[in-house]
């Protein structure tokens, strides 16, 4: 399975500011995903990021709030813009595995907005 790292691992931010989360994979992958896990909740898919194309956002998530970059096959960023306390969550990136079905997850970024 791929080794996935995320930066930062955690952060405390003030409302109205933005935070960019980085996701680095140790091998080239086509499909990357960004999820949000609110406190005590399950995972919700924010968007799918394929290299060379615009990210595809799920219902309830918009590009202005969560812009995503995917400059190459091993790296992606998610920005949480104009943050409010409701954005306090764990943000996880994942990649599609070699079988083309399973997903492997990074360690997550724990974001607290005050």
């Amino acid at each position, binding site marked *: *399975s791929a080794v*996935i790292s*995320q930066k930062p691992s955690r952060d405390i931010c003030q409302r109205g500011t933005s935070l960019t989360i980085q996701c680095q994979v140790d091998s080239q992958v086509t*499909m990357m995903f960004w999820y949000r896990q609110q406190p005590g*909740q*399950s*995972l919700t*898919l924010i968007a*799918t990021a394929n290299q060379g194309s615009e990210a595809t956002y799920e219902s309830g998530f918009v590009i202005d709030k969560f812009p995503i970059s995917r400059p190459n096959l091993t790296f992606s960023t998610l920005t949480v813009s104009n943050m409010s306390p409701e954005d306090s969550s764990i943000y*996880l990136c*994942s990649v*599609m595995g070699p*079988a083309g*079905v*399973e*997903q*492997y*997850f*990074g*360690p*997550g970024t*724990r974001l607290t907005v005050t």
Partner: protein
Amino acid sequence: AQSVTQPDIHITVSEGASLELRCNYSYGATPYLFWYVQSPGQGLQLLLKYFSGDTLVQGIKGFEAEFKRSQSSFNLRKPSVHWSDAAEYFCAVGDNQFYFGTGTSLTVIP
């Protein structure tokens, strides 16, 4: 509509006892099914997966799961739980897009 239900929000078992975590799904086609574990402050680790074939699948850390099409279930089992198994467990279904259950929190008591 696709969905995953984990009926047990929280389970407590004694160390050495057996464990079964329930998962029911609704999916329009033959599903791909997964179990993930999330330890405190960690990301999700894939325990096991079912694509096709033998309905009893073996995973890491001594876990297994059984796919029962007639019951739309994919329950996770372990014959003897260790204290280090205390974590949050998520069942998921899907292919390109995953649908996760709400998770079952496992506490292991000595």
